């Protein structure tokens, strides 16, 4: 009897400890979920489901700069305040999703278009307003990425190699929206010494980053710091600042340490 009471008490104590724990382990997103952004600025007001944006599909076709500079999407979720009327007038999503812009010789479907009249049977709105709905997407992640080089984390795709091997050719210019710029002068790579001794040095490649980003995606909004003047920590990076604005959200995650910490320990 005493033994039963003891075991019951033990179970209760353990349960209390588990319940009292404040931290919740974050589930690692599946490859097709990685980089998914849920936009909910005004959808709720119109009783629409929030918009689900898949980075993997868009990043395979367009550079980061095209969307985050030329089209004007903020780097923070819900930071842009896109309205259906903006899309309808040909801004933001409507820059490409307008029924006229063609990709692979196929017109890209219109976003938030009132013309032609909304046809519920075609589930037009649900192509984007799909949060919490079982919507069949136009592209399947597995088949779309089947020929791309593999990587351990994130989407499970080595996007950098895919771009180098011309398996993907992200578009960097849209007529009427983008600005014709001179070819970007590639800045030199530089190394960053980690705060923790024994950690391999980080080599920051301007070349790798400017291929997709240009200058103004990172400077000065994300990296206000001048080289060597401000020290930031991995805690801040994991909290989504500095490198963490992209890495861990759309670019490869920071658990892939060796992608950045590449130099031998001094």
């Amino acid at each position, binding site marked *: 009897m005493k033994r039963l009471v003891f075991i019951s008490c033990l179970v209760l104590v353990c349960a209390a400890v588990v319940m009292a724990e404040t931290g919740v382990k974050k589930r690692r997103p599946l490859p097709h979920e990685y980089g998914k952004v849920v936009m909910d600025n005004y959808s709720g007001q119109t009783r629409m489901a929030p918009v689900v944006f898949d980075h993997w599909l868009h990043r395979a076709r367009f550079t980061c700069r095209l969307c985050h500079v030329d089209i004007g999407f903020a780097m923070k979720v819900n930071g842009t305040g896109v309205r259906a009327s903006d899309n309808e007038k040909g801004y933001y999503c409507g820059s490409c999703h307008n029924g006229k812009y063609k990709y692979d010789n196929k017109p890209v479907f219109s976003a938030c278009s009132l013309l032609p009249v909304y046809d519920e049977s075609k589930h037009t709105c649900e192509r984007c307003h799909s949060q919490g709905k079982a919507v069949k997407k136009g592209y399947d992640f597995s088949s779309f990425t089947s020929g791309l080089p593999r990587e351990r984390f994130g989407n499970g795709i080595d996007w950098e190699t895919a771009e180098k091997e011309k398996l993907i050719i992200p578009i960097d210019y849209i007529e009427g929206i983008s600005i014709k710029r001179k070819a970007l002068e590639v800045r030199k790579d530089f190394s960053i010494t980690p705060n923790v001794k024994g950690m391999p040095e980080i080599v920051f490649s301007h070349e790798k980053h400017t291929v997709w980003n240009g*200058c103004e995606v990172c400077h000065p909004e994300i990296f206000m710091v001048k080289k060597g003047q401000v020290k930031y920590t991995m805690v801040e990076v994991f909290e989504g600042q500095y490198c963490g604005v992209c890495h861990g959200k759309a670019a490869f995650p920071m658990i892939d340490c060796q992608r950045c910490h590449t130099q031998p320990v001094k």
Partner: protein
Amino acid sequence: MRRTLLLPVVCALVLTAFSAATAAPPSQEAWRAEFDDLCSKTDDATSLSKEELKALIERCDRLKPEIEKLDESPRKLYSKRLQMCRDLFAYVLETKEQEEK
């Protein structure tokens, strides 16, 4: 005599009114051309001199009120884009000034 004069005058007025109605507002094209010219320089901002960067920042500041007159959607978009360009020029300028010290 009056009739012969009246006809060309009326034609000229009609033509002027037609061309004014069909052409895009000149101010709209002017702001876009200025915007494109300014923001096309972001990629080579580091190779510009301090004076050139200061001139670009001043031009951004002069263009801002023009963009603020636009409708909601283009105003939202181009205000942000212009701000990004201006911020980059200011950032590069500040970096250059600090490097000189």
